[in-house]
């Protein structure tokens, strides 16, 4: 069994962001593995431990994204591949899904692709479902549990978190699983894992390696653009602190919320 986990490198979730000359910056805050992806990496390593799967980590990004892949290796993934090529800069979510799908095709023998729910920078959540569509594989997004995996029958049963509660769904393999937080508790990389990852050779694939069509990738080949990025407007007004006995505070709050027509 071959499991691929797709990861992205993003600014730390605690980073203070600003926009300078149209570019998003995060000062001296570090770049990390996208927090949603931690759950997907952990799930890949658990599938390796439970089913003897081979776990490959795949990232698309700049050279620096190798650090994110090293985290995957330190957590227990067997191999890591970076897709990096200046011609791919500016690819939107759908172009990214094409790049990742081509890489998964190149790997050839993949049974399951794991993703985090979305990346905390672009925040579209489009890539997992779009990769599933490009590969023609079943999409199991918002998965909180892989309930069963039958390699002989080539089926997977997953529990998905939807608005009304939990949905239990079964699918044939190969499939694309989009994980959400409840699926597991990600481990910290072990000391031995970190040492191994530091010495690991990370393969890099270019656009040519993947046979990508120029018209479908990069800023020019993308269907969406961000002409403007800007900070949030300041929140109107400042806080009014309500004081008194609990009963007095309750009366004051009720008065205000009713006057504001909030309740």
């Amino acid at each position, binding site marked *: 069994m071959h499991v691929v986990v797709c990861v992205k490198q993003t600014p730390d979730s605690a980073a203070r962001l600003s926009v300078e000359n149209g570019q998003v910056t995060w000062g001296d805050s570090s770049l990390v593995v996208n927090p949603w992806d931690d759950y997907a990496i952990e799930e890949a390593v658990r599938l390796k431990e439970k089913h003897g799967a081979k776990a490959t980590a795949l990232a698309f990004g700049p050279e620096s994204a190798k650090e994110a892949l090293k985290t995957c290796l330190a957590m227990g993934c067997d191999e890591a591949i970076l897709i990096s090529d200046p011609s791919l800069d500016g690819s939107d979510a759908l172009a990214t899904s094409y790049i990742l799908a081509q890489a998964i095709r190149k790997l050839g023998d993949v049974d399951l692709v794991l993703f985090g729910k979305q990346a905390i920078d672009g925040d579209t959540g489009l890539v997992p479902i779009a990769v599933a569509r490009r590969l023609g594989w079943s999409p199991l997004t918002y998965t909180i549990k892989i309930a069963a995996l039958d390699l002989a029958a080539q089926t997977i049963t997953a529990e998905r978190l939807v608005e009304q509660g939990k949905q239990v769904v079964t699918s044939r393999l190969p499939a694309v699983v989009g994980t959400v937080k409840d699926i597991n508790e990600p481990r910290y990389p072990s000391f031995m894992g970190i040492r191994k990852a530091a010495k690991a050779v990370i393969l890099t694939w270019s656009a040519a390696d993947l046979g990508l069509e120029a018209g479908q990738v990069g800023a020019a080949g993308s269907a969406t653009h961000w002409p403007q990025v800007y900070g949030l407007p300041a929140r109107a007004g400042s806080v009014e602190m309500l004081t008194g006995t609990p009963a007095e505070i309750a009366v004051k709050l009720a008065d205000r919320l009713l006057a504001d027509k909030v*309740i």
Partner: protein
Amino acid sequence: MSHKTWVFIEQFQGVIAPAALEALGEARRLAGVLGGGVTALLFGQGVEGLAAEVVAHGADEVLLADDATLAEFRAEPFAALLAQLAGERQPEVILAGATTRGRDLLGMAAVDLNASAFADVTDVSVADGQVQATRPVYAGKLLATVAAARRPVLISLRPRAFPKPEPDAARTGRVEMVSPVMAEDAIGTKILDYVVEAGRVSLADARIIVSGGRGVGGPDGFAPVRDLAEALGAAVGASRAAVDAGWIPYAHQVGQTGRTVAPDLYIAAGISGAIQHQAGMRSAKTIVAINKDADAPIFKLARYGITGDLFVILPALTAEFKQRLGK
């Protein structure tokens, strides 16, 4: 001949999703700018009775697919049918609510149509005939304007970011039957079961949310949070700290690795307001913070702040609201 502006009508067990009605209202508004009417897509089994409700809320045409393969939402058959219809009839824009279903549907269909996709937007505009949108990015810390280079433009709308239209029973519209394009054998996924939490107010659709954090101290500490939520008809939320401690299920988590919500009123009890929590609730219209620590960052976002013990304050609020709201 269908219209330029399309909207997907999400329904679950015969009830139209609030986010779908909001999308229908926005479609109506957009159609006023783009010209023509609104075409609504209603897929399911035994849902023809919903067509009148869809028309009353703003559709001029309903493309209705009624089939066993569409009985439950599954991205593959729904996206295949949507893409087939859009490929034939060439709409300019297709809207849906940015729910789990709406986001999956539009993401898949965008691949089939080689289209533009904007996810989870909070505003849609038309500039020089081009559809644009505004969406929160970087976990809601920044906003981006997004523009489309390809047609159609598929847009999922953040729940509660757009007003729900008032129904008008006098509106009329045509209903056209359409046929599914995938046979059951060709669909990779089969739904075995739903475990639906009855009576629970969905966080995404909630007008009021009462959330508890580290300050509630344990699973029992959510009792006064639930009591206040009940008095207000509100949904119960939680911070990551409370979920990670195992005090309340993950489905309640608001924040960066939980749900993003936009209620009219958000009451945060015992939540300090870490930047990751703010990512999930900063678009609430009015925020009330209750915390022992007067320096907690949550007070910077709040309209009203109360410094004190939530176990004393919350019951007082519950009693007062029950009386005022006549419960």
